[in-house]
């Protein structure tokens, strides 16, 4: 049974809510702008609505259905307590502009979470308002830019390793910087010598991911930071991989000036099929004076103030301004705080330990069949990287990924990082049991054996999913982005 579109089963007369019918002759102060024409929004009764979305959902894979071995995307279990907490009326049903005295608990959540983030990272301050990781990156780069401008030393270049997430160069460019790459060494780390050679008075910042996207810890991180600082630049760390070291290593101790934290990765707020995220940015003492609005300040009497435009001059005159309306992703803060409190200092340390153990177990259980280009570079961190070197001609990383679908698993991250050919990046996270890992490994080995043997049947996978491979070329060439009676035909 294929699920129809709401436009195909609903009508503009049907509704799943009961509201008084608009009364004729009611007062009208709409200034003559009444919307007269029908605009074709279909409605469904509640039973039909529940069924439509239930059926749609059943076509999805999700963490609740199985492992997401997505390198660099950290998909972990979302505790249901956190969903409950976020829906408490004092969090879910408060307006962002309520008087301070009526939202002390909400402000306390922000303040308490901020304190945990600062402590866990060993930094000086945190900007809570960025709405997702990329937004956090932008926030961090804007802090750097504000700091440089404040000292009258605007610079032009941001250095980004080749293995970086695509958002890094995008962010730097968005903030007006020219982006230059830094090569990687043969063992998969930043080429420190090349980096040192490039540093100079035009370099504003270096953006580094650590652990990096090859799944390796940047051993030279502290030395890199020192060199960058010596050159008058700042170190931005992409915190997407913070899960690998949380509770064990503090980026502040490595000389980082700014790092965003994807709450939905390390602190398990639900990914929701593509968001919302939340990207608080921890800042060093050098950057803290330029943090964006708004932020919380704990007063001597224990009350917490929300500092906005009206008070910023008294508290943080260097603030570069507001990055969005209101105070950030409160709904994610409550979840992240509940997650952190649940784990505690001991639990978070166990999180990174188990995440790294699971990744190494994966690495060592597969490297006899698959090329692990940096397998000899030491233990991996929270993710294991492989290349397509062993595959026979005609079979690609994509085919292996789709083959996994037929085995009941979500594919790993493909073709990223770019520094490895046909990259396969696997991050099991700490939430997977040994039994699940063993199941995944067995299935994956089976597929890899087929790929290595050149079984072209894999190029037809998946066969058992709700859909076969999709015609993405046509989708992009002749985009159909909204339903219309004609397009449906």
């Amino acid at each position: 049974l294929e699920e129809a579109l709401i436009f195909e089963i609903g009508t503009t007369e049907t509704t799943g809510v009961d509201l008084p019918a608009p009364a004729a002759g009611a007062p009208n102060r709409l200034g003559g702008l009444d919307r007269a024409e029908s605009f074709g929004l279909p409605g469904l009764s509640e039973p039909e609505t529940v069924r439509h979305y239930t059926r749609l959902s059943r076509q999805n894979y999700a963490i609740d259905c199985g492992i997401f071995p997505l390198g660099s995307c950290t998909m972990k279990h979302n505790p249901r307590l956190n969903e409950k907490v976020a829906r408490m009326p004092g969090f879910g049903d408060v307006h962002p502009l309520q008087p301070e005295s009526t939202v002390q608990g909400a402000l306390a959540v922000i303040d308490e979470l901020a304190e945990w983030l600062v402590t866990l990272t060993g930094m000086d301050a945190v900007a809570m308002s960025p709405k997702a990781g990329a937004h956090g990156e932008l926030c961090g780069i804007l802090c750097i830019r504000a700091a440089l401008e404040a000292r009258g030393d605007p610079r032009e270049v941001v250095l980004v390793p080749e293995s970086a997430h695509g958002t890094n160069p995008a962010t730097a460019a968005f903030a007006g910087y020219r982006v230059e790459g830094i090569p990687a060494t043969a063992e998969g780390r930043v080429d420190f010598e090349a980096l040192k050679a490039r540093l100079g008075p035009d370099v504003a910042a270096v953006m580094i991911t650590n652990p990096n996207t090859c799944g390796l810890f940047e051993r030279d991180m502290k030395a890199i930071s020192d060199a960058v600082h010596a050159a008058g630049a700042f170190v931005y760390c992409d915190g997407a991989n913070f899960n690998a070291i949380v509770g064990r290593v503090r980026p502040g101790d490595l000389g980082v000036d700014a790092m965003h934290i994807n709450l939905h990765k390390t602190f398990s707020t639900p990914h929701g099929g593509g968001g919302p995220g939340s990207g608080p940015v921890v800042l060093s003492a050098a950057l803290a004076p330029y943090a964006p609005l708004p932020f919380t300040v704990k007063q001597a009497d224990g009350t917490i103030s929300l500092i906005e435009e009206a008070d910023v001059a008294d508290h943080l005159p260097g603030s570069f301004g507001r990055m969005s309306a209101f105070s950030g992703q409160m709904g994610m803060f409550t979840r992240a705080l509940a997650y952190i409190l649940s784990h505690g200092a001991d639990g978070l340390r166990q999180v990174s330990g188990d995440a790294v153990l699971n990744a190494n177990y994966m690495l060592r259980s597969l490297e006899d069949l698959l090329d692990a280009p940096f397998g000899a570079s030491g233990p991996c961190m929270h993710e294991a990287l492989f290349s397509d070197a062993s595959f026979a001609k005609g079979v690609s990383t994509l085919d292996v990924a789709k083959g996994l679908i037929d085995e009941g698993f979500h594919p790993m991250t493909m073709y990223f990082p770019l520094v490895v050919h046909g990259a396969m990046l696997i991050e099991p996270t700490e939430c997977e049991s040994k039994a699940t890992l063993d199941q995944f490994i067995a299935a994956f080995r089976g597929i890899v054996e087929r790929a290595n043997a050149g079984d072209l049947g894999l190029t037809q996978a998946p066969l058992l999913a709700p859909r076969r491979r999709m015609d993405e070329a046509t989708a992009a060439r002749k985009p159909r982005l909204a339903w219309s009676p004609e397009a449906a035909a």
Partner: protein
Amino acid sequence: MRYLPLTDTDRSAMLDVVGAPSIEALFSDVPESARLPGLIEGLPLHASEMAVERHMQRLSDRNIAAGSAPFFLGAGAYRHHVPSSVDHLIQRGEFLTAYTPYQPEIAQGTLQMLFEFQSQVARLLECEVANASMYDGSTACWEAVVMARRITKRGKSLISAGLHPHYVSTINTMAGFTGDVIDYTAPVLDAAADDEALIASIDDETSCVVVQYPDILGRLPDLAAIAEAAHSKGALLIAVVTEPVALGAIKSPGELGADIVVGEGQSLGVGLQFGGPYLGLFATREKYLRQMPGRLCGQTTDAEGKRGFVLTLSTREQHIRREKATSNICTNSGLCALAFSIHMTLLGEAGLRALAAENHRLACLAADRLGAVPGVELVNTSFFNEFTLKLSGNASAAVKALADRQILAGVSLGRLYPDAPDIGGGLIVAVTETTTLEDIEALAAGLQEVLA
């Protein structure tokens, strides 16, 4: 540790496979000096679910929930009744815990939903294409300004006085770094939006005119006239809708000629949540499609010819395009889009119209009642569900005094415009279907008391 499945027996067996003596040994690449030998100081140990829940409940109880008091705040975030089935459905694990649908074969649920969402948004705003959501209204608005620059190759943006000041700040922050010119003045407490002055400011260097509809004071600017003026100078009209429920009653920005329509979708399905996560709406003309920021879902077919949906045109996105991306968005607001879409499906056009009518009916009642309080004057001549009152005293002080009486009276202009003290008597009041006649009476009585 209830969230960690590995047992110590598992860990030993796995370390044997890995060939490491301990988990600590796996961190050997971290310099000794940066490795914490024990637990991070200053943080408590793990806690039971019951303990965490109690802690959070105590914090929650220190807030006054909107539903527990007469409540009149709006100014960009609105309290509407969300049908229970919305929250039930978005909590299904297959939606809640799904990843971005990059693997369409096993993500048709999310993808079809996004396609339906885009279609709903396009119809609601009467634009040809809509994207799969932005972070929120303010960032969507800023992205629209950036997009207008890409399209017009002009660097001057004209911002209406009626645009939400947080949105203005957000745009200004970015302009401070990109060198764009932003032309904006705060509103004055006037009876109607000064559309003529705005129109007069459009010139040949104007990239876009940004107009909120209804505006921050609840007024209804003449979008059609502004659109015509903008187009005549080669500029784009960006319309900003912070209360989508209004479009069940008033003409859509698309119909009135807007080129880009952005909005805050929080009103439908999402809830107040102290400001986030919210939902950025973004729609435009088909001809600007490839300049549009954000993720897009498109219809196509699979290898067997079955209809299906995929993320498409991703070569505009930063995780692919890197430094040549069209926007700063990667993770968006998928789950909020789902909530919006389900709520909209439950409403349908008939329900949205009825909802809007009920909002307007109650707002009219409230405007009359509150405007009759001594020392209170209704500013608006027209409005949808939100209007501005001019108080004889300072509105920020009145809001605080009323909060002490457990009445959440609205948003004072003094809080939004700290640098414009001449509008300190202004109070923005929003009324929705959740407002009762008793609430209105309570506010009227409270205002009378604090202004006396």
